[in-house]
């Protein structure tokens, strides 16, 4: 166990040593929040027909801030993994005692431990300054707690995408698709209740809603599902993702050994 902790610490240290990248993400975060704040202001103007008071905008912004927070905290480990696989470093590393996959995940979680608090601080400050305090402080607390778990699961899925490099070679297009599906089905910019009912039912079959919309909606008046149920859902997807990733990885390693790398 301590070996994985060591990898996590390494990830943590690396993330701290690259403030430029994090700064860039923070800037992006604030700007995107600004853009969407403008969109929702414009929407509120045009929606006398929606019968919802403009106060709704404040909740929207906190929702947005939280979905963005979960998304942007997760380190982009898939590209590092892709690099490792392409360079053939994996062949050497898998003979080491620590499970390569476990090490990579630990590394990502270490980086997450640095990014998540920073992004959370930025999220709260920005949302507060744009839309005032959250409607339910308690809800915010729960949302943050569950959001951390969700961000960890997103990191796990990033590892999974990285492993796909064994077959795809170049995972960037696969990542784009995953990311856009996460945006849309995960309710990044638009809470799921806006979507047609059938759509939402289909979306629920995927992990995406649980990752973003789930935690963020806990801070609003219409949570997607109760916190407890959400946690169970997240754990379920995490386990499923992990099992599939491990199976895929072992398969790839076996093929590597057979073909001589």
């Amino acid at each position: 166990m301590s070996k994985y902790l060591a990898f996590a610490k390494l990830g943590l240290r690396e993330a701290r040593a690259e403030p430029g990248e994090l700064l860039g993400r923070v800037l992006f975060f604030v700007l995107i929040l600004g853009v969407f704040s403008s969109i929702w202001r414009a929407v509120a103007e045009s929606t006398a027909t929606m019968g919802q008071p403009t106060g709704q905008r404040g909740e929207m912004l906190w929702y947005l801030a939280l979905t963005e927070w979960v998304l942007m905290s997760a380190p982009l480990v898939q590209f590092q993994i892709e690099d490792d696989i392409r360079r053939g470093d994996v062949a050497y590393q898998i003979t080491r005692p620590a499970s390569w996959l476990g090490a990579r995940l630990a590394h990502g979680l270490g980086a997450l431990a640095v990014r998540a608090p920073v992004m959370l601080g930025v999220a709260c400050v920005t949302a507060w300054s744009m839309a005032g305090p959250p409607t339910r402080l308690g809800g915010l607390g729960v949302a943050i707690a569950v959001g951390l778990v969700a961000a960890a699961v997103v990191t796990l899925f990033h590892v999974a995408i990285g492993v796909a490099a064994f077959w795809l070679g170049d995972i960037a297009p696969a990542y784009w698709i995953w990311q856009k599906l996460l945006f849309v089905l995960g309710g990044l910019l638009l809470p799921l209740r806006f979507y047609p009912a059938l759509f939402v039912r289909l979306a629920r079959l995927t992990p995406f809603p649980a990752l973003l919309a789930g935690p963020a909606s806990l801070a609003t008046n219409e949570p997607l599902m109760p916190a407890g149920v959400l946690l169970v859902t997240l754990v379920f997807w995490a386990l499923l993702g992990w099992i599939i990733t491990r199976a895929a990885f072992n398969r790839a390693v076996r093929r590597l050994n057979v073909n001589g790398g």
Partner: protein
Amino acid sequence: MSIAVDVKELSKSFRTREARGPGVRARVADVVAPRSRAVRAVDRISFRIASGERVAFIGPNGAGKSTTLKMLAGILLPTSGHVTVAGLVPWRDRYQLGFAIGTVFGQRSQLWYQLAPRDTIELLARVYEIPRAVWRSRLDTLVDAFELAPLLDRPVRQLSLGERMRCEVAASLLHAPGVLFLDEPTIGLDVTAKATIRELLHRRSTEDGTTLLLTSHDTGDIEQVCDRVIIIHGGRILLDASVGELKRRYLRSRRVTLVTASEHVELPAAIGARVVSAVPHRTTVEIDAGDTAVGALVDAVLRQTTLRDLVIDDPPMDEVIRSIYRSADDEGEAA
């Protein structure tokens, strides 16, 4: 005989910015108030290279070789001094200079990785504005000389390092430059590939009259390609001599390998031989090449045993050069 490269009192000082270290505060401080250090990479060097000469530029890491080469190619601006290459001032007449020089970087390929060498060559024809008929015929000559026929249409990523280097050098000669700069051209190549490249360079240069200036760590490059050596150390020229002169002046010692019937030999101290290696039946000594030294050595050995074989060699060039560095360092320390 025209002068291809003329360098007078050339100097280059850098202000390198030093990073304070990792971490946010250090990084911010680096941007707001950068710390810099002045380094003299090249210190008033002067030399002249005639057209058609083949010169090796050697020196340890950090000596200033690549910096000098970059100044000659017009990539870096000197701090002071005068340079002309092919009659042009490199950084001022960069466009015309481009047509007159060629470059080969051993550590960085100029061939497009996913495409065949022929595709790179077609692009280079446009870069150097060579008329179709001219570059077509020149390509044929180069393909023959470098034996590129089986390689020309295969993607570069499928070629071995040696094959790639052959294509690189050929491509660099497409526009028939008067001067060819090579930065570590044989690095990473196996013995056969090195020999091939060296031979090709030497032959092309003698046939076309191309001036060669190559930097290297590999003394084999010197011996097999070049006629002249310039040794750079700490930004200064330590030695500028022909290869023959280098050997004669600094090769006062000889390496003698004695293959003897007996397992070991005893050598009287008076002979002044230094044992380099001694395994059963085979002793190698280094001895000053005086008139009687070798003879005395052989006599001494024959008194003890019979000689099965005797080999007399020059010491490896490496050692010669290393000793030149060492004496320069010693002088530097004494100063």
